[in-house]
């Protein structure tokens, strides 16, 4: 095959049985790879009502057809499973070189089943696949684990692993590859931990073949040119990283502050991308085949928060910064380093600490509950310590490890959890930006921005400007962005390539690479198919229209301060139209006609 390697690796962790299966070309065409193909396999093989942390859940690692090629910024892969934080189908997307290396080893998909009897790691060297003892790695942090595995396998191996957080089943534990890149959201790291799987190390010597080399070179060249010429894709992200958004969102009153109590933080600039570039940035970093370089190689010299690594991204700087009432960039970056080293999702970690800080400030929890941790708003040292305690599973960290919804529920205040489908919402205030709220509410993995990033048109004016406060046209916009993103994720491309290119560009690259003719509409239809299949899964897992909702604060309490003062999210108004646009019934279920149209019936 061209683009795809044509093989699936299946590992039964319980019996140790390792088998190879052929990738069905029809499935590859319809679901592309990564998130799409992983979801299809979950649909075919796993009961949506499975306990996510039981051996019956499966864990799938899958790159996309673009991974391992020089389609610009396209080396990504997805970890697909049932997420323990949300209970939804979960696909968590990561960059680095790990996905590309899986392709070079000859694999489009790795399916992990069951549970290993003891801590184990998987060593994949082309066709030689071995399940090895990982007792000596259990308890080790991410950088130590990664380096030890380089020594035990190959200096050229790529390693994806969990840290102590995944071992201790923190519900928002991440899978980290090459130390710094995270498949962060929905708790995929806890699923890996529940299977006693510490790591996957992979080394490949094979190549990804191209159907039409000249056409692929031309299509990639054209896409690269468009991205490089784009002010965000070509310049902004390299100079300031995603953290450039702090000041932009704050200026429109859309920067969630103090656990979404408002949307404006007066000293936000101190944790923004410009401050980061001036104080901590060593150099921009890029994932495999990246031409954008939004990654931040950083160093903190302040002895209190000393460290080095990558980050923070915008959502991280926001979560540990303004959302906790903190403007100390060194503390924020240190919290990020802890997340990378211990294996935690920075967004849910930030949102969970922010929720605890609000409960603490309101007297709902006290020093007795937090075991002495003074979680007053703005206490940067306590915030950093809260993150560490969560990752190592000590003290109040054991409760934070449940995520904000379960934490707030313990104390009788689930309304203080700023989540959709129990996953923490990221750094865009739904009261200030109407479309993003609709995306959070309808998102197949709950509070998440990267599956319908309407911030581009609603705030940045990319590719065209939409009024952020309007509701007209938003259901259509959200559905289109969700479909396009599902296709992009499934292809192996990075979402940030949309700062420059559109569906026709992806289709041109994909057609030349695979030899299968895709139009821009075909590409988007692949995404719509994936979205609807995820929805079917969630419906079967018990989710209903009632779950397509935001916290009551977003819809009932007008924004108290800042440029978006007075606004509320009108997500409920937009919902019927969204269902109609999607071709779903009033209860949010895909109709027979829609399923037939997508060949899902």
């Amino acid at each position, binding site marked *: 095959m061209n683009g795809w390697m044509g093989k699936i690796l299946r590992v039964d962790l319980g019996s140790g049985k390792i088998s190879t299966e052929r990738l069905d070309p029809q499935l590859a065409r319809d679901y592309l790879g990564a998130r799409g193909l992983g979801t299809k396999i979950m649909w075919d093989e796993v009961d949506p009502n499975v306990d996510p942390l039981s051996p019956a859940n499966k864990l799938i690692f899958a790159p996309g057809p673009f991974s*391992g*090629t*020089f389609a610009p910024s396209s080396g990504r892969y997805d970890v697909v499973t049932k997420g323990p934080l949300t209970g939804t189908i979960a696909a968590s997307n990561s960059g680095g*070189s790990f996905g590309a290396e899986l392709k*070079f080893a000859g694999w489009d998909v790795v399916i992990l089943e069951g549970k290993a009897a003891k801590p184990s790691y998987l060593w994949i060297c082309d066709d030689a696949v071995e399940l090895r003892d990982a007792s000596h790695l259990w308890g080790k942090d991410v*950088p130590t684990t*990664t380096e030890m595995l380089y020594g035990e396998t190959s200096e050229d191996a790529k390693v994806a692993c969990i840290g102590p957080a995944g071992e201790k089943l923190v519900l928002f534990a991440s899978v980290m590859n*090459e*130390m*710094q890149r995270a498949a962060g959201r929905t708790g995929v790291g806890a699923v890996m931990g529940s299977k006693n799987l510490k790591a996957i190390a992979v080394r*490949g*010597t*094979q*190549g*990804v*073949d*191209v159907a039409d*080399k000249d056409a692929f*070179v031309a299509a990639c060249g054209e896409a*690269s040119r468009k991205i*490089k010429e784009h002010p965000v894709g070509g310049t902004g992200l390299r100079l300031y990283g995603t953290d450039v958004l702090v000041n932009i969102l704050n200026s429109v009153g859309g920067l969630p502050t103090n656990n979404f109590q408002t949307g404006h933080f007066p000293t936000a600039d101190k944790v923004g991308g410009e401050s980061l570039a001036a104080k901590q940035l*060593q*150099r*921009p*970093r*890029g*994932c*495999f*085949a*990246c*031409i954008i*370089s939004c*990654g931040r*190689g*950083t160093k903190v010299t302040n002895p209190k928060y000393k460290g*080095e*690594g*990558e980050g923070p991204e915008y959502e991280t700087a926001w979560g540990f910064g303004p959302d906790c009432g903190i403007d100390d960039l060194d503390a924020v970056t240190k919290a990020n380093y802890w997340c990378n080293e211990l294996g935690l999702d920075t967004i849910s970690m930030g949102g969970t600490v922010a929720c605890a800080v609000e409960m603490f400030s309101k007297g709902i929890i006290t020093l007795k509950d937090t075991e002495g941790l003074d979680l007053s708003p703005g206490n940067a040292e306590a915030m950093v310590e809260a993150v560490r305690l969560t990752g190592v599973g000590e003290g109040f960290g054991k409760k934070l490890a449940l995520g904000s919804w379960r934490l707030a529920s313990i104390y009788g205040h689930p309304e203080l959890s700023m989540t959709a489908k129990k996953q923490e919402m990221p750094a865009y205030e739904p009261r200030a930006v109407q479309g993003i709220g609709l995306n959070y509410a309808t998102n197949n993995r709950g509070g998440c921005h990267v599956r319908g990033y309407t911030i581009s048109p609603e705030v940045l004016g990319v590719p065209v400007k939409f009024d952020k406060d309007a509701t007209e046209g938003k259901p259509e916009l959200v559905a289109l962005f969700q479909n396009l993103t599902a296709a992009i994720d499934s292809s192996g491309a990075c979402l940030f390539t949309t700062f420059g290119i559109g569906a026709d560009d992806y289709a041109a690259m994909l057609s030349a690479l695979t030899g299968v003719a895709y139009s821009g509409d075909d590409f988007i239809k692949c995404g719509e198919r994936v979205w609807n299949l995820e929805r079917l899964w969630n419906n079967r897992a018990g989710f209903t229209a009632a779950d397509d909702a935001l916290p009551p604060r977003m819809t009932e309490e007008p924004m108290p301060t800042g440029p978006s003062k007075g606004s509320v999210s009108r997500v409920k108004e937009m919902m019927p139209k969204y269902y109609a646009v999607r071709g779903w019934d009033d209860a949010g279920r895909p109709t027979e006609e829609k399923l037939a149209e997508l060949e899902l019936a």
Partner: protein
Amino acid sequence: MGMMLTIHPEKCTGCRNCELACALEHEGNFRVKASRIHVYAWEREAFSVPMMCQQCKDAACSTVCMPKALTRDTATGLVDYDAAKCIGCKMCVQACQFGNIAWDAMSGTVLKCDTCDGDPACARICPTGALEWADEGLAVQPRKKSFATKLKNAFAEAQS
């Protein structure tokens, strides 16, 4: 004046586009194992260094090559590889102190940078200018001036 491939590691983001472009140029597919350039990353420090043949003047690979498959072209300044003459003894692989020449069992040839006949694909695709195909004199000028600036500033500080 001749041209040379210059590495600026401080500009390298670790994206490995150079490996991909090299593999496609020489192998016709994306088999980066066969790429003539490889990027090494230090993930803790977020630092990367691309490595490829330095086209040594006194090249160990060429010295040990009995069938004279590796020879220095004085006109271009490159160490040329003639696969037809190569007997596959791999002495060159063992002789290169940089590890910049490798044996590829799949093709039965030696893998070594040939600068794509004077238009290296790696430098063409490098998105940050970390790899530069430049005149041998001009290649070092920015670095030289950058260091000279540091010296100038140090003097200014000492005298103030």
